């Protein structure tokens, strides 16, 4: 801001905590904040990959760290965040996709959201069944 503008002392509304003003913004921020734990999980896997490349003893050390109480609690939190990501990803999908028309009618937002959520739930279950 220039000195001249300072002299006029214009009113500038503070942007501090702008996202707390409206529940819609809070939900937006929670959705964006899921990324921090998604990144953390990717880093945990990346460390696992490094330990795997270093040999059996190193990898068993990584496995041992995963078995600690704090790690399991952290992963429960990461799981909750991923489930919220799953929901919010398809919740905003109708706004991110180009409009889809079926028989000349716009495909309703809920249809897109619930189809996506259902697909994601099915794929997650398939992954679980393969791994069990």
């Amino acid at each position: 801001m220039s000195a001249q503008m300072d002299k006029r002392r214009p009113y500038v509304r503070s942007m501090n905590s702008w996202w707390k003003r409206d529940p819609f913004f809070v939900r937006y921020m929670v959705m964006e904040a899921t990324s921090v734990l998604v990144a953390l999980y990717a880093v945990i896997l990346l460390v696992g990959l490094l330990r795997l490349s270093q040999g059996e003893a190193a990898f068993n050390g990584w496995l041992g760290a995963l078995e600690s109480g704090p790690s399991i609690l952290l992963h429960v939190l990461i799981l909750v965040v991923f489930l919220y990501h799953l929901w919010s990803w398809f919740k905003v999908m109708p706004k991110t996709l180009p409009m889809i028309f079926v028989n000349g009618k716009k495909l309703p937002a809920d249809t897109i959201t619930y189809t996506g959520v259902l697909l994601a739930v099915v794929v997650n279950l398939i992954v679980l069944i393969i791994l069990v």
Partner: protein
Amino acid sequence: MTRSNAPLVWSLFGAGGVLAALVGPALVFVTGIAVPAGILMSHDLMSYQRMFGFAQSWAGKIIILAVIVLFLWHAALRIFHMLHDFGIHPGVASKLICFGLPFLCTVAAFYWVLPI
């Protein structure tokens, strides 16, 4: 007009977001809860021999890289925009942190998984 790398970053963001929704919860449950705690699944599922064998196959390498790299770039773009939302405007420092770190991690992931 200068070429923009935004479409590339946005593609990685979208692919990472879809992958995180489709397989993320199941993966986190298996690798972070079920196997370490021995609930429903045995410790053997993530034994060194099995994981090493998985990482030796091309399918395994692609799956490992896809999960780590796409999750990271998905998160990177969101964190970059979140910094903006908190008043830290896009600049050299925020770009270096938000895109430089995932780039280094991507290189590291390839460097570590390919020789296995």
